[in-house]
């Protein structure tokens, strides 16, 4: 029996690279200069799906929600072997908290249609909340297994698997369909396949194609651009290089559950903390300086 898998992936700012120049003078983040990367745990989710397909046959579809640039993680997924890639891109989705995001993804997955497994990464590094997976499962009416590590047995509609909760593990058995959030220790994500990179590096969404054409023909009339765009999209389609791009209408999302209005949690205020530099005793990095420090700590009973 073969299985249809859907993988939810996210493009995230690389939080391990937050350095001085990433901060604006007002203490907020300048996202533009922070490199955007494939959320690491999502690569493990992708790998888990691909390996189900490797051993049982079937399909793997990736879906992401995000700004146009997030199509990059879809290309990365195509390089690794997915059959189909979809981006949900809509300004009205901006400001979505985890609950609204879960809802929007659930509508996209309903539109994709058939599935036996939905895979998510354990969490995204920009928020570490680990909330979207369980919320998506609930919206789809699916069983959720978080901290998934491996499938032990899969036959027909029954799956036996292992989850690892840090201080122990469990073996669970349930029936398909279900949603899994995948640990980074679950597997070793495969690298991009060179042949597929050659094949898919020119894959584009409609939005990306339009942007590229506008940039290439700054002085052209709108009509001319539109015509050029139609030709380009036709070509992408013919070569199987058009990445599907949906907006909230395409997935029949109820707008009251999307974006800011669909998000119960609201940001009340953001404070930057002013760090005061004074108040600590500086010691020279010398044997003497350090001996003095240790002495002081022993005398006041902090040590020993």
């Amino acid at each position, binding site marked *: 029996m073969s299985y249809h898998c859907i993988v939810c992936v996210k493009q995230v*700012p690389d*939080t*391990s690279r*937050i350095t*001085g120049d*990433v901060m604006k003078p007002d*203490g*907020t*983040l300048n996202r533009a200069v*922070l490199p955007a990367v494939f959320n690491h745990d999502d690569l493990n989710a992708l790998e888990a799906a691909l390996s189900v397909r490797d051993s049982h046959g079937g399909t793997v579809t990736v879906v992401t929600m995000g700004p146009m640039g997030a199509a990059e993680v879809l290309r990365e997924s195509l390089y690794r072997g997915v059959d189909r890639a979809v981006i949900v891109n809509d300004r009205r989705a901006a400001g979505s*908290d*985890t*609950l609204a995001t879960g809802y929007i993804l659930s509508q996209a997955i309903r539109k994709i249609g058939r599935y036996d497994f939905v895979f998510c990464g354990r969490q995204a590094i920009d*928020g*570490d*909340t*680990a*909330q979207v*997976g*369980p*919320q998506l*499962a*609930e919206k789809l009416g699916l*069983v*959720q297994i*978080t*901290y998934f590590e491996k499938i032990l047995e899969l036959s027909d509609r029954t799956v*036996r698997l292992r989850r690892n909760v*840090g201080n*122990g593990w*469990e*073996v*669970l058995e*349930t029936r398909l369909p279900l949603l899994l959030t995948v640990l980074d220790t679950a597997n070793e994500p495969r690298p991009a396949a060179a042949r597929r990179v050659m094949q898919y590096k020119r894959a584009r969404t409609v939005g990306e194609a339009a942007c590229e054409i506008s940039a290439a023909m700054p002085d052209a009339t709108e009509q001319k651009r539109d015509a050029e765009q139609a030709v380009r999209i036709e070509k992408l389609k013919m070569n199987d290089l058009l990445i599907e791009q949906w907006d909230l209408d395409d997935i029949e999302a109820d707008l009251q559950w999307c974006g800011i209005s669909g*998000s*119960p*949690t*609201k*940001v*009340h*205020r*953001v*404070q*930057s*903390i002013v*760090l*005061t*530099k004074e*108040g*600590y005793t*500086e010691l*020279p*990095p010398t*044997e003497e300086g350090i*001996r003095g*420090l*240790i002495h002081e*700590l022993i005398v006041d009973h*902090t040590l*020993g």
Partner: protein
Amino acid sequence: MIEQNRKGEVWVFAEQEDESLNEVSLELCGKARELADRLSVRAAAVLAGWNVRELSYRLIAHGADKVYYVHDTHLEHYRTLPYARVMCRLIAKHKPQIVLYGATPLGRDLAPRIASEMRAGLTADCTDLQIGDYTEPKTNAVHKNLMLQIRPAFGGNIIATIINYDRWPQMATVREGVMRLRDGDPKRSGEIIEEKVEFNDFDLVVRLIERHREKRKINLKAARTIVAGGAGVGNKEDFQLIHDLAGAVGGAVGASRAAVDGGFVGAEHQVGQTGTTVRPALYIACGISGAVQHRAGMEESAKIIAINWDREAPIFSVAHFGIVGDLRKVIPMMIKAIKERA
């Protein structure tokens, strides 16, 4: 979601496994007590399990006025769906205004499922919870006495205050150790209310075949001294320096998330917003820049020593002693100095 209920109680989901309560639930009972007093309402805990009624008394001692106890064989070991069913039913019935969960693997599995079913808000990994007012900027509508859910925001030195004024209950998860564990008062009295919840076939569709739990290997919260290493340590081999210094001072090993992500040391050593919050007598930060998410987990340490070769690193702003220098040179000197004194 439930309608706003200003008389609603402040709830804690009481996490128990193998008939023992997770300490974070007791910490949260203390916080719930505080919030409930501010709001002049009652604090309650929800305890689900099989033959665990006895645990109610500890929850009461730590601040709960009431314990809703659900006793059912299906609840003996945690599974998402039956536990979510219990919480959703009880929330719909009693309409608490606030529900708090430990940000443990169990709490992080359960709370978002409940939030989705109740269409309510949920803020992860709060480092502080307060009561305060909020004025909607567009309408000038004032919402009084909301739970302010405070957490470091991604990047920089930014603290965000999150609120939820229309889709109640207001829910948050909190890591272990963030709220102080107060001494329980065994003389406190409270009510134990038994509740019954029915399960359907779907709730029970996951079967637990085998289960294994390990005793916790390290307890950072209890350590008197912590030596923590960050990305600046460089690699797993050099992280031995951190272990060596911890050995010399008789302390535990901590780490920043960058060190954990780099594979230098296991995730159970992580200090910070999404790790453990610690308040040792001495915290030695080596090669840690001091991002707000890290500081949130250690700045209340009684004494902090920072070793970093970048004078501008924000870790120095919370330090009592600072050594601007290469940790590869400084740490061996420290070990030597300690050995000389011993």
